C-alpha cells in the first residue's frame, strides 16, 4: 500500500484531466456530457479515497473492529451520484430538444445556424 500513497491522487488527476479535455475539445454535445461525467466520477473517487484509513473497515459498527473509514465523504458522494445522474439526464434532455430543433448536435453547426437566422 505504500506504493499507492500519492500515486493514487495522481491517477485521479489524470482521469479528471481526460474528462476536462473531452469537455473542452469535443464539439459534439453528447461527448461533452460524457467528459463531464468522467470528470465527475474521478472527483467521487478522490473524495472516497480521502476517507480511507489503511486497515479500516466499512463504517458499519461490528463488535471487535476499532478502526473504521470516515463515513462523511461516503454520505456526500452517495447523494452526489444520484444528483449527478439527474443533472446528466437534464443535459441529455436538452440535447434531444436541440437535435429536434436544429437537426444536429455538433456545436459549430448549431452556431452557424444561429448566425444565419
Amino acid at each position, binding site marked *: 500500500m505504500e506504493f499507492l500513497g500519492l500515486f493514487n491522487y495522481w491517477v485521479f488527476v489524470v482521469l479528471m484531466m481526460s474528462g476536462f*479535455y473531452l469537455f473542452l475539445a469535443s464539439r459534439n454535445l453528447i461527448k461533452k456530457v460524457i467528459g463531464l461525467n468522467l470528470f465527475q466520477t474521478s472527483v467521487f473517487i478522490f473524495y472516497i479515497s480521502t476517507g480511507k484509513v489503511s486497515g479500516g473497515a466499512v463504517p*458499519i459498527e461490528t463488535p471487535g473492529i476499532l478502526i*473504521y*473509514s470516515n463515513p462523511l465523504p461516503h454520505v456526500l458522494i452517495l447523494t452526489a451520484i*444520484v444528483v449527478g445522474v439527474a443533472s446528466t439526464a*437534464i443535459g441529455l*434532455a436538452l440535447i434531444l430538444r436541440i437535435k429536434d430543433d436544429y437537426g444536429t448536435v455538433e456545436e459549430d453547426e448549431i452556431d452557424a445556424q444561429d448566425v444565419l437566422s
Partner: protein
Amino acid sequence: MLAIAIATCATRNLFSAAMLFGIFSLISASLFVVLDAADVAMTEAAVGAGVSTILMLSTLAATGYRIQRRPAGRQVLAIGVSVVLGAALIYGTLDMPKVGDPISPVQTNPIAKRYIQVSPTETGIPNMVTPLLASYRGFDTFGETAVVFTAGIGVLALIGRRRRRNGALLVPNEVPENSAQRHRVLRVSGKQLIPFILLYACYVQAHGDYGPGGGFQAGVIFASGLMLYMLLLGIDEAERIISPKVLEKLIAVGLLIYGGIGLLDILQGGSFLDYRTLSHNPQHGLHYGILGIELGVGITVTAVITSIVFCFAGHLRSHIVERTSQAEIPSPKETPAS
C-alpha cells in the same frame, strides 16, 4: 481505468464511448468497495453502469453515433489547458497526506471522531452512513432530494409532454416491436430476474440501518428493475404497469413525506427534522424519523429516475413513429400538392 478513460477520449464512435463509460463506472464501483464505501459502490453500480448508460444510449439512438473529424487547432489548445491544470493539481497533491494515512486531517477532525465513535451509541444504528445522511446532515439531504425532484420536473418539462402532444398518433403497439420477437431468450430469462431485483430494493430500503443501504440506493435499484422491464417488454407495456401520471405524483409524494416529517417534528415541539420528538423514547423517535425520510427519499428517487427513463424511451418512440409515418404517409400527400 486510465486506459478506458483515454480510449473514451480517443474514440470517434459515440456508441463505444458510452459503453466504455459504463465499464469505467463499474470499475470505479468496485474501487469504492476496496476503499470501504459499500453504500457508495451500490449506488454507483446501479446508476453509473445502469441508468446513465441507458440514458446515453437512448439519446444516441435519436442523434446518431458518428462524430465528424475536426481541425486539430482546438484539440491542441485543450490538451495544453488540461496538461497545465493537471500539473498544477499534481503539484497541489504533493502536500496531501497519503491515502489511508490514519493521522490525516480528514481522520483526526473532531467531527469524524464524533460520527464514528459517538453516533452508533447515540442513535443505536450500527451503519454510520445512514444516521449521518438522514439525521446529522438531514437538511443537506433534504436539499439534495429537492434537487433530484427539480431535475425530474425539468426532464418532464423538456421532453415529457411531447408524446402527449401528438398522442393521437400513438396507439399502443403501433411501433413494430421487433425486439420482443428477436430476443426471446433474453426476455424470458430477464423476466425471472425482475422480482428479485425489486425485492432486493425493498430489502435495501428497509435494512439501511443495519447493512449498507437506504433511500438513495433502494431508489436507484428499484428504478433499474423497472427499467429492465421496460427494456425487455417495451415502453408501452411498462407504462401499462406503472402509468406516468402515477410516477409524476410519486415524485412529489416522496418530497412531501420528507418535509412532512420535518413539520411534524415542529408540531411535536422540536425543531425542523429533529426526530427525537416523534416518540416518547427519543431513540425510537430517531429510528422512526430516519425510516420515514429514507422512505421519502426512496420514493422520490425511484419516481424521478423511472420517469426520466420513460421520458427518454417515449421520446425515442415518437421519433420512430414519425420516421415510419413519414416514410409511409407523406408520399401520397405530396403528389397532389406538386
